C-alpha cells in the first residue's frame, strides 16, 4: 500500500477528537489539516516555502530542460549524418553506424520525457517524435502474420510502396515524400497507431520488425533495403530512402524547435511563460512530471502492461530491443529533476538549486528518504540493463514462462511505485496539495 503523508497529522487529529468528545462536532480531519475552500495550498505549509529559493529551483529546472533538449537535438543531428552516410553508401557498416547513432540519440531524449507531463508545450509536441505503439504496416512491408489495431484504416497503407494511399473513401497523394507529408499522415484516419514520424518510425526503418516474439533477437532489416539496382531488396527502395531521410529531417527540426522554447531571453517562448508564473505552479509541474512518468507512464503503461499481458507488442523500443535503456533513462530523468543535476552528452555535469534542497529545508528525513528511493529504482532499472547486456532483453524477461525474468521487471515496478509515494510526500512537505496541473485547455 501507499504510504500516507498525512499519517502524522491524522494521529494528531485523532487525539484532538478524543479529547473533545461530546463538544466537538466538527469532523476530526478539519482540526488537523485545515479545510481549504479556496484554490490556494494549505496555509500552514505555504508559509514555510522560501519564495526566492523556489523561484531559483524553477529557473534551474528550465536550464536543465534546455540542456537535455539541446543534447537531444545535437544527437539527432549526429543521427542525421549517420543516415546520410548510410544512404550515400548502403553497407553493413553504415547501417550499423546509423543504428548506433539512433541508440545514442535515445539517451538524452528519454531524459527529456520527465518534462513532458506538466508542461503542455512538450506534451502537445512529443506525439510527432515518440508516439508508440505503432502499426508499422502504415510505413513499409510487414510479415504476413502482422497484427494491428482493430478498425485502423491505415494499418496496411504501406506508404513506401504506394504513391497514392487509399483510406476509406479518401485517396491521398503521397507521390513526393517530404517531412510535411509525413507529419500530415500521422494519426491518419484518426488512429493513434498510425505513427508515420519520429524515433520509432526511424527505428522501424533501421531495424525492421522484430519477429522473434519473446525469443532472443531484434529486427533484422538488411542494408540492401536501401540499395538501388543490383542486390536491392524490399522493393520501392527510392521511396524507402526518401522516407528515412524525410523522417529524420523532421525529427531534427522538431528537436530544434523545442530547444527554442527553453532558451533564455526569447520573448514569448515557454521558458518566459514558466518563469513568469508563480513558483508554486512551477514546483507543481516539476513534481507532476516526476510522479506521472514514474507511476502511470513508466511503471504502468510501459512496464506493467507488457509484463502482465506477456506482450511484446507493448514493449517500448520493440524493433531495436533497446527498451531497457529507454526505461533506465526515463528513470534517470526523474532523478535529474529532483537532484537538479544532468550529466550532459559531453560528459560535463550541470547542477544547481534543486527540489531536493527545498525539501531538505522543510524536512531532511523526507528528502533523504526520496533520495534513497530514487537511487533504489535506478538500481532496479540497471538490473534490466545488465540483463540485456548479458543477452536477456526486456522482451524475453516478460515471457509467460520466465518467472525469474518477470521478477526483475516486477522489482523495478515496485521501486518506481515506492518512489512515487516519496514524490507525493515531498510535494506535501512543500505544501503542494493539488498535484494535477490540468487546465481547461490541456489535460495530461
Amino acid at each position, binding site marked *: 500500500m501507499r504510504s500516507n503523508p498525512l*499519517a502524522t497529522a491524522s494521529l494528531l487529529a485523532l487525539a484532538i477528537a478524543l479529547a473533545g*468528545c461530546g463538544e466537538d*462536532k466538527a469532523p476530526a480531519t478539519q482540526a488537523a489539516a485545515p479545510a481549504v475552500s479556496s484554490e490556494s495550498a494549505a496555509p500552514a505549509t505555504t508559509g514555510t516555502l522560501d519564495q526566492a529559493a523556489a523561484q531559483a529551483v524553477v529557473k534551474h529546472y528550465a536550464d536543465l530542460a534546455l540542456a537535455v533538449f539541446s543534447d537531444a537535438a545535437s544527437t539527432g543531428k549526429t543521427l542525421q549524418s549517420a543516415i546520410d552516410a548510410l544512404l550515400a553508401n548502403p553497407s553493413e557498416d553504415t547501417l550499423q553506424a546509423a543504428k548506433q547513432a539512433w541508440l545514442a540519440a535515445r539517451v538524452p531524449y528519454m531524459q527529456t520525457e520527465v518534462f513532458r507531463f506538466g508542461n503542455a508545450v512538450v506534451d502537445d509536441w512529443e506525439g510527432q517524435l515518440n508516439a508508440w505503439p505503432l502499426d508499422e504496416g502504415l510505413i513499409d512491408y510487414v510479415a504476413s502474420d502482422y497484427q494491428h489495431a*482493430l478498425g485502423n484504416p491505415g494499418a496496411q497503407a504501406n506508404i513506401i510502396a504506394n504513391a497514392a494511399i487509399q483510406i476509406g473513401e479518401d485517396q491521398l497523394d503521397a507521390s513526393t515524400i517530404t517531412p510535411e507529408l509525413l507529419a500530415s499522415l500521422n494519426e491518419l484516419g484518426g488512429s493513434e497507431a498510425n505513427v508515420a514520424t519520429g524515433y520509432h518510425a526511424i527505428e522501424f526503418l533501421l531495424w525492421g520488425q522484430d519477429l522473434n516474439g519473446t525469443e532472443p533477437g531484434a529486427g533484422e532489416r538488411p542494408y540492401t533495403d536501401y540499395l538501388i539496382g543490383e542486390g536491392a531488396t524490399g522493393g520501392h527502395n527510392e521511396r524507402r530512402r526518401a522516407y528515412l531521410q524525410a523522417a529524420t529531417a523532421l525529427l531534427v527540426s522538431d528537436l530544434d524547435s523545442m530547444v527554442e522554447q527553453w532558451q533564455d531571453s526569447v520573448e514569448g517562448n515557454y521558458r518566459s511563460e514558466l518563469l513568469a508564473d508563480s513558483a508554486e505552479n512551477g514546483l507543481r509541474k516539476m513534481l507532476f512530471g516526476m510522479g506521472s512518468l514514474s507511476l502511470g507512464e513508466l511503471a504502468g503503461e510501459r512496464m506493467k502492461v507488457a509484463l502482465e*499481458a506477456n506482450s511484446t507488442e507493448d514493449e517500448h523500443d520493440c524493433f531495436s530491443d533497446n527498451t531497457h535503456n529507454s526505461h533506465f533513462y526515463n528513470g534517470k530523468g526523474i532523478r535529474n529533476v529532483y537532484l537538479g543535476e544532468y550529466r550532459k552528452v559531453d560528459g560535463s555535469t550541470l547542477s544547481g538549486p534543486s527540489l531536493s534542497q527545498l525539501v531538505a529545508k522543510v524536512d531532511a528525513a523526507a528528502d533523504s528518504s526520496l533520495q534513497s528511493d530514487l537511487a533504489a529504482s535506478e538500481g532496479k532499472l540497471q538490473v534490466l540493463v545488465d540483463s540485456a547486456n548479458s543477452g536477456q532483453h526486456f522482451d524475453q524477461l516478460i515471457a509467460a514462462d520466465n518467472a525469474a525474468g518477470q521478477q526483475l521487471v516486477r522489482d523495478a515496478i515496485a521501486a518506481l511505485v515506492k518512489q512515487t509515494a516519496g514524490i507525493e510526500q515531498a*510535494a506535501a512537505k512543500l505544501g503542494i496539495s*493539488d*498535484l494535477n496541473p490540468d487546465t481547461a485547455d490541456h489535460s495530461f
Partner: protein
Amino acid sequence: MLRKPLIAALLGLALAGCDQSPPEARISAALADSVVLPAYRSWLLSNQQLASSAAAFCAGESALPAARQAFLSAQSAWAGLQPLMVGPLAEGNRAWQVQFWPDKKNLVRRQVEALLSSKPQLNQADVENASVVVQGLSAYEYLLFDPALDLRQAEQKARYCPLLKAIGNHQQALGQEVLDQWQAEQGMASQLKRFPNARYADANEAIAELLRAHISALDGLKKKLGAPMGRQSKGHPQPYQAEAWRSAASLANLAAALASAERLWQGHNGDGLKALLGRDQAELAGRIDAAYLDTRQRLAALERPLGELLGEPTGLARLNELYASLDQLHRLQESELAKALGVQIGFNAHDGD
C-alpha cells in the same frame, strides 16, 4: 407510532455524540459493511453463476443467450467494484486477471487464438499459467460476442469451450480468494473497522484510501468514455478502443460503476463519505449531489449503445455533454472534496497517456 423513529434517532445522536470513535472510524466501518463488502459478495455470486453457465452451455444444457446474460451480469458486478478497488483485488495482478483494457492492438484475439493453437487439449492449468489476457472477462467476451465467432456451431464450440469453462472457473476461484481475504479475521473488512491495524494507523488513513480509490475510478471512467470518443486521437471516434465494445455494454458498465461511486458517497444509510463534511460544507455536499444527479440523468437518457452514438454527430454531441458532466463530477471530488477532507490525492495509474 411516529415517535419511535424519532426517539431512536435522538438516541442515536446522543450515542454518536459521546462515541469514543471519531466519525472517520464510524463511516469507514459503515461503508465496509453496507457498501463495499456487499459489492464483493455479489461479484463472487455472479462469478459462480458465470462458471455454472459456461458448464451448462458447453454441455448443451443451455443456449447462447443465457450464457451471454451470465457474462453481462458478471461484467456489471465487476464494473461496480471499480470505485471500491481497495485491498486484495487492487494488489498484485488480480484486477488484470479480470479485465484487460485498453486493448490497443487486439491482444485478446491474438492471445486467445495463439493459446488454442498451441494447446488444442487445453486444461485449467494451461490457463492458470497463461497471460492474464486470456484469464478474464475480456477473453470471455471475445468468445461469446466477437463478430467472427459463433459458438452455436459445433466445431467452434469444441474449439473454444475448454477456454470458456476455464475462464469461468478462474473467475470463480478469484472471487472466492478475494472475498476470503476480505472476511478473514484480520482481513480487509476488519482493517476498515478496527484501528490501528497492519494496514492503517487510524481511520483517517482508511478514509483517505477509500477516497483515493473512488476518485481514481472516476478518472478511469473518464478514460473509458474518452478513448472511444477520440479524445486522445484528434477527435476521431475509436469504437474498438471502447471497453466492452463486443458486448455493447460500455455504457452499462459506466452506469454500474457510477452507481457504486454514488453509494460510497451517500452511504447505505446516510453514512457515506458525505457524512464527513461538516455543516459549514453543506454547500459543497449539495454541489456534489447535483453533479451525481446530472451525470446519472445524462447517462440514462442516452438509451442506445455507445457504438451507435459514436457513429453520428448528434450522438457524439450528447456523449461530449456526458463527458463534461463526468469531468465536473470527478474534479469536484478530486480537488474540493479531497481538500475539505484533508486528503492528498497524489498520483494514480491513469496519469500519463
